[in-house]
């Protein structure tokens, strides 16, 4: 094995000291001179006509600088479908709809001003159930759209599912549901907008997509009559992303509009309640699935029909079926696949991207039914999956080209570490579920690229400008490791700058677990260019042939003669300060050779795919329905772990988020209203909930990844829920098909299985009436 100096090492994050000392500056910590504070008034109804808005009282309040409603602003369109506006005109379609905004000298005055805005609503019939909303004659959320079903034809059929159904020896068919969960970034959303005298915009914002945000804001400037003006997006340190910052939001446009009207910097910063109510969720799904196999356990078909609650407006949530297609067509070898998904407008909160981008919802249904099918076929769940496992060189029906694939080895690791075959105690069980995820970019936009600029100074140090966004996952560090490795430098020689669209190149955004792969390759490409020139200079200096010199330990040296070496800094100074001097700079734009989906959704969306298997041992309390996780193993094929410590961090964090998704988390919406916008009742797990997790890593060295690496940001939370559901079934014989798997659901299922009602009485007994079920 190659002896790496930086790659593969447990290197601390390069920004960790700043963060450990409290010096890192988040949007919450930024203040500009003369800055005003913007606040937003939200709707009081899930669906209502806005009869009138009276802002006169608010405007008169001392300290208020600006009050805006839809009447005061140009038509700025937001959302994938351009169906949303920063401030709503005519009607509101959900509780989170922005109705008015104010800017004032301090947050308290701004709050007071909001109280002074009088809005008269005329409530309209509202609809919260997507299956109801799909029906003929249902109340329309957007009248001009004519139907509540989004006109996005997520529909594919490869092979012949109906024929396969006739052939199948075993078929399972069921319905699974998932609900709203949300990102819960510890650092809430916020931005500060400021215009210069020439009306160029500078906006500090929490975003995962600086380049796309810049484009969105340019469009907004055009709508404001400022076509051709500049937009500079500056990212402060980001307090977590997980997909929540993958779109531009009304609050950002509101900050821009308030800044434009007041000619002052304006900050809009969410408090925790707002963060829960006015940012987006993972989209809830209703999944009808059937899968079938032959006598020997070979999968013959997978047939899925899905309904997604899109909420009132479109964001990336509406496009998650595109990523769901990946596990649906290509998790295990499936010759015949049919999938149709309908995203439906309702008066609920609208959905966004969230870690996994649809994959967790799809995998919950797929991997739960895989176990059900294995049981029907009388095959051990692991063996059943092994029969159908993807292998290197496979091309799936959708056209996904599997290059490296360690799926079977991941299953082996789970089997071994979980002691799969060891007898279990009472009410204990084991379960597993696997995953496929994009690991080499994901072409969902016109470009899947990322740019990097490297400049070297006279001291052998590097300023590296990347389009990538580090929102905590550690991409800056990984990039620094890759560049240090390539150039024989130390990590601390690499200064990574990713914060400013004025100086950083384009990148499509930190999503799809693509940053290590795409930004890593971009950085590597630029480093290679630098390396070539360094070697050239070095060869001349050392009077040695090119192939005989190497970069190592901040030096250029002769491979056979360690005395013959020169410090890189010294070499650079010589080059700079000689006649016709030169300095080393390089740029590289890496756009992977992956494919946009074609008309029938075929296409190799990623250069490579990450595989993994999660296994879990649980103990179910049959009296309370509580599920205790005794042991958790999350094995992943990651290509190459550039930084094992950060990689583990992604897996642990993903698994804990997945456990929350499986067991405790739920945005409770009652008729569209968020009933638990706080950490008391929205239950992300605490340190005391940590379960024993092992994270074995399989390295398959993908030929396209930087030093062999594939992406690992999202997989940690993908198969968690089905692994647990499968383990619960193994433990107590009940199949939970709805998330979250609450003790109530488990207990109810246990009671049902025993032929008892919810109060533990035998069904059909006379005193059943006494059992009052209030829900």
């Amino acid at each position, binding site marked *: 094995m190659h002896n790496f100096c930086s790659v593969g090492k447990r290197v601390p994050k390069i920004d960790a000291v700043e963060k450990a000392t409290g010096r890192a500056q988040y949007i919450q910590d930024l203040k500009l001179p003369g800055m005003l504070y913007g606040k937003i008034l939200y709707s009081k109804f899930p669906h209502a006509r806005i009869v009138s808005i009276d802002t006169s009282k608010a405007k008169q309040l001392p300290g208020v600088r600006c009050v805006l409603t839809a009447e005061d602003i140009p038509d700025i369109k937001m959302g994938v479908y351009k169906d949303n506006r920063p401030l709503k005109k005519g009607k509101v379609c959900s509780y989170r709809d922005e109705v008015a905004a104010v800017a004032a000298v301090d947050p308290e005055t701004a709050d007071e001003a909001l109280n002074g805005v009088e809005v008269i609503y005329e409530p309209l019939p509202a609809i919260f159930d997507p299956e109801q909303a799909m029906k003929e004659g249902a109340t329309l959320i957007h009248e001009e759209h004519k139907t509540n079903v989004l006109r996005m034809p997520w529909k594919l059929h490869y092979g012949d599912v109906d024929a396969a159904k006739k052939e199948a020896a075993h078929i399972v068919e069921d319905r699974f549901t998932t609900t709203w969960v949300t990102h819960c970034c510890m650092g809430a959303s916020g931005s500060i907008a400021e215009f210069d005298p020439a009306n160029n915009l500078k906006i500090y914002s929490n975003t995962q997509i600086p380049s796309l945000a810049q484009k969105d804001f340019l469009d907004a400037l055009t709508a404001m009559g400022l076509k051709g003006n500049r937009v500079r997006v500056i990212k402060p340190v980001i307090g977590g992303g997980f997909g929540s910052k993958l779109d531009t939001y009304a609050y950002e446009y509101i900050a821009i509009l308030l800044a434009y009207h007041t000619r002052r910097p304006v900050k809009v910063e969410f408090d925790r309640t707002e963060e829960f109510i006015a940012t987006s969720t993972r989209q809830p799904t209703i999944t009808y699935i059937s899968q079938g196999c032959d006598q020997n356990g070979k999968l013959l078909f997978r047939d899925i029909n899905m309904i997604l609650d899109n909420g009132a407006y479109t964001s990336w949530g509406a496009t998650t079926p595109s990523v769901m297609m990946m596990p649906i067509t290509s998790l295990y070898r499936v010759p015949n696949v049919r999938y149709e998904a309908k995203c439906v407008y309702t008066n609920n909160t609208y959905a966004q991207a969230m870690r996994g981008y649809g994959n967790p919802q799809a995998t919950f249904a797929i991997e739960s039914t895989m176990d059900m099918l294995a049981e029907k076929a009388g095959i051990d769940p692991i063996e059943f999956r092994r029969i159908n496992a993807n292998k290197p060189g496979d091309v799936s029906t959708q056209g996904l080209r599997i290059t490296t694939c360690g799926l079977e080895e991941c299953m082996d690791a789970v089997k071994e570490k979980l002691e799969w075959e060891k007898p279990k105690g009472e009410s204990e069980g084991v379960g597993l579920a696997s995953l496929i995820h994009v690991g080499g970019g994901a072409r969902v936009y016109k470009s899947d690229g990322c740019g990097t600029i490297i400049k070297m100074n006279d001291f052998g140090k590097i300023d590296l400008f990347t389009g990538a966004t580090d929102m905590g996952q550690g991409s800056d560090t990984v990039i620094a490791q890759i560049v240090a490795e390539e150039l024989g430098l130390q990590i601390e020689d690499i200064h990574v700058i990713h914060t400013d669209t004025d100086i950083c190149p384009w990148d499509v955004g930190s999503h799809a677990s693509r940053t290590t792969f795409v930004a890593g390759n971009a950085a590597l490409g630029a480093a290679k260019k630098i390396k070539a020139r360094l070697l050239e200079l070095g060869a001349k200096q050392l009077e040695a042939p090119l192939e005989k010199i190497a970069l190592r330990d901040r030096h250029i040296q002769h491979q056979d003669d360690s005395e013959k070496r020169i410090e890189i800094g010294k070499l650079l100074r010589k080059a700079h300060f000689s006649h016709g001097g030169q300095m080393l700079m390089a740029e590289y734009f890496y756009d992977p050779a992956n494919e946009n989906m074609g008309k029938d959704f075929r296409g190799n969306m990623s250069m490579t795919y990450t595989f993994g298997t999660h296994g879990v041992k649980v103990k179910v309390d049959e*009296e*309370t*329905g509580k599920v205790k996780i005794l042991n958790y193993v999350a094995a992943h094929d990651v290509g190459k772990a550039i930084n094992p410590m950060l990689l583990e961090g992604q897996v642990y964090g993903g698994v804990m988020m997945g456990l929350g998704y499986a*067991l*405790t988390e739920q945005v*409770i919406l009652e008729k569209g209203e968020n*009933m*638990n916008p706080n*950490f*008391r*009742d929205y*239950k992300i*797990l*605490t*340190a*005391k*909930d940590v379960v024993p997790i092992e994270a074995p890593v399989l390295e398959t060295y993908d030929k396209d990844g930087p030093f062999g690496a594939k992406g690992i940001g999202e997989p940690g939370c993908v198969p968690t829920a089905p692994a647990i559901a499968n383990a619960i079934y193994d433990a107590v014989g009940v199949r939970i098909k709805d998330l979250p798997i*609450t*003790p*109530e659901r488990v*207990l109810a299922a246990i009671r049902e299985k025993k032929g008892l009602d*919810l*109060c*533990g009485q035998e069904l059909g007994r006379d005193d059943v009436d006494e*059992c*009052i*079920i*209030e*829900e």
Partner: protein
Amino acid sequence: MRKFTYLVPKTLDEAISLYQSYGERAKYIAGGTDVLVKIKEGKLAPDYLISLKHIISQDRPFLNHETGELYVGAFVTHRMIETSPLVQAHYPILYDAVKNIGSVQIRNVATIGGNLVNAVPSADGAIPLITLDGKANIYGAKGQRSVDLLRFFLGPGQCDLERGEILTEVVVPRLLPRTGSAYIKHGRREAMELPMLGVGVLLSLEADMETCAKAGISLGVAAPTPIRALQAEKHLVGKTINEETLAEAGKIAGEESKVRDSIRGVAWYRREMVAVLVTRMGMKALERASRNAEVGMGNK
């Protein structure tokens, strides 16, 4: 946060006279972890906050060795109760409850009195103290009075305090010999939970170490106020304590409860858990009573 004036009296009388001066515009505050949240949320809007934090009083629970009574000052923090060797050794039900309230940060500041006067059905601090037959000592302009803590709770957010009165301490009468007790907060997470249900059980045994001499069963979030399951208690007295009799008591307690649906839990499940958890806490109390008897730690 909304503006107010913060007043820091050193004695109860001073506090009460301040309250009398400002009346409805004033609000008492101790640890402040609930009051400040309510002010931030706009649910309270006092012009004056009268702090009870600086009133000279006991800062930890103590035992009156003559009467055998436990005194828990209202301004004692949860953390002080949690770390009290006295409470840990002899009042495990109280320890069980306070050690799981909020976080360490909250417990370092929040007081038991604050937890009680909030009078929420989920008050973790209330369940053990009513199980222990605690009495609330209340001080006001008219002087001191005492009320059974159980009767102190009148409804959600309502307690038996006249205007300006202050809850000063809870007194727990001498425990019978051969007593054990336990509390469980039932929730979804291991920490930072408000209970979906709180169940406390206290058992005092006869000298035979199996017959129930006295039982206390209390429930939180099972009714608009913390309650005692009196029928269930009655069912146990005189009977041999075992899983079976406890399960019967649990079932009765479930029937006594007035559970309802909320975002934190559904009624049928809560009622079922009353039965399950009364049994479990009963067994734990039994075990503790036996252990105490073995090591001679029965209360005097």
